[in-house]
């Protein structure tokens, strides 16, 4: 199997990509709008082909702790859920970060708070990029805006997670999860052998050979001095990730008077609005952060010096806009437009917002 073109839902693409990546395990719990991920995995039965373990856990809490255990043994393991379920996973994610274990978590966001709605939302931005659980930690956050990226980011997410021994999130939403698009499935990789895990992840639990010290994976440290050192090490790693791993897409920004910053599915809708605006002679560009953490602050700060306006458009009450404002540091007034509760704005609506804000 080299590359393969398929028509897939975003959720299905995640499942296909996980198997092709050579993931060792998936542990999940059903919740709308992401249940197709586990359903697809169960239908594809990868345990018969690649040996990948797929297990429906008793809860999101159990699922993320299965991921924690699997990751501890050096395996490429993942889970997926939607907003309320991801809240439950925060305990495990904090442990993954505190124990420096690689893992992939998919959040196909729906509207909240509480049980909320099953319709799409981006209201878990803060939860994803600011840590989410207890303690000072960061999770690499990838925001796909196409079904293709749902597949590609399984690879990118796992690769970054292992490169930095840090959990990574694919922060999608109900639109990307449920829509179907053409996907070029990435090339098949083999699952790593025990020997490869031994060399690549010398920290992994594999049973202690005579002569090696025990591998002990824990986030617990009662000595404040050592705990501070641990935290400083994490922070140094986070600075390294911020330096190396920022990803974004800038569309027609170089001659733009106004820049829309938007991520995920909403960036696609904004792109249509941008095309319409250009059609009317309004010079709008789109800046789409692909990594929400690390956030593309530098490029936004650069554009802030050149353009007349920046507006953040989100499916929430204004979360990413705070990071944009931090990035521009007062150089320009950053406006915000958002829809809540599962409402998705149309391209027309966004064009009207641009006109209302800037073309008076």
């Amino acid at each position, binding site marked *: 199997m080299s590359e393969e073109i398929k*028509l897939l839902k975003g959720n299905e693409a995640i499942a296909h990509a996980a198997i092709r990546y050579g993931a060792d395990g998936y542990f999940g719990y059903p919740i709308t709008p992401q249940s197709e991920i586990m359903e697809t995995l169960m239908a594809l039965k990868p345990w018969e082909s690649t040996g990948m373990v797929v297990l429906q856990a008793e809860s999101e809490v159990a699922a993320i702790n299965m991921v924690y255990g699997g990751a501890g043994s050096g395996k490429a393991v993942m889970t997926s859920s939607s907003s309320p379920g991801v809240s439950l996973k925060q305990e495990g994610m904090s442990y993954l970060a505190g124990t420096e274990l690689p893992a992939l978590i998919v959040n196909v966001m729906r509207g909240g708070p509480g049980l909320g709605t099953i319709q799409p939302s981006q209201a878990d931005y803060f939860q994803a990029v600011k840590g989410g659980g207890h303690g000072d930690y960061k999770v690499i956050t990838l925001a796909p805006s196409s079904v293709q990226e749902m597949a590609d980011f399984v690879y990118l997410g796992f690769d970054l997670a292992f490169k930095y021994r840090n959990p990574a999130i694919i922060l999608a939403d109900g639109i990307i999860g449920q829509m179907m698009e053409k996907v070029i499935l990435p090339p098949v990789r083999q699952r790593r052998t025990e020997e490869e895990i031994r060399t690549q992840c010398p920290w992994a639990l594999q049973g202690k050979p005579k002569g090696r010290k025990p591998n002990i994976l824990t986030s617990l440290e009662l000595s404040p001095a050592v705990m501070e050192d641990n935290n400083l090490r994490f922070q140094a790693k986070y600075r390294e990730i911020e330096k190396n791993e920022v990803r974004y897409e800038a569309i027609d920004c170089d001659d733009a008077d106004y820049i829309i910053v938007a991520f995920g599915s909403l960036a696609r809708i904004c792109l249509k609005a941008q095309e319409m605006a250009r059609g009317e002679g309004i010079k709008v560009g789109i800046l789409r952060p692909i990594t929400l953490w690390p956030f593309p602050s530098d490029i936004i700060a650069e554009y802030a010096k050149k353009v007349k306006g920046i507006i953040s458009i989100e499916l929430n009450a204004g979360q990413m806009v705070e990071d944009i404002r931090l990035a521009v540091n007062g150089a320009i007034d950053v406006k915000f437009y958002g829809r809540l509760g599962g409402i998705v704005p149309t391209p027309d609506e966004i064009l009207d917002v641009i006109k209302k804000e800037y073309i008076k």
Partner: protein
Amino acid sequence: MKKEIIVAGFGGQGILSLGKILAHAGLIEGKEVTWMPSYGPEQRGGTANVTVILSDDRISSPVLNSYDVVVVLNQPSLDRFENDVKPGGTIIYDSYGIRHTPTRKDINIYRIDAMDEAIDMGNARAFNMLVLGGILKVCPVVNTESIVSSLKESLAERLHKLIPENEKAILRGMEIIKAEQEI
């Protein structure tokens, strides 16, 4: 080329699979495609719709406020989407249960009595394929061979015996669609 299509009706009418077969045919022809359903409990009753975009170029928004082709299969959908047809665009409606028909003067209006036909054929499952045939007749966005290949890939193996039946329904749909207003 870019066609933005929405199909709307009741849940359970096979709207999502209609859209999927159309999108898959586009994929077979090397087009960019996007299939965006309304999702949630409406799949099991109430209203459902699916937006299908086929394009030679990268597709921006999967969510639209106007369409080249609007296919409405019940009164609420007709009322909801008639105004979203682009000027010069096309609306296709099934007359079954329709009390008031489209009134816009700036669009093409086609009627397909697919529900009646499905009942006459004694095959309620043929309904969505009749509609698909009608769509392809007035908006030949993909060719029929691609649709047949798409059926093979979209349907589970155990349903492949139904492909000839589906093909027949598609061809029949092409025959029964009628122009009411062409601009």
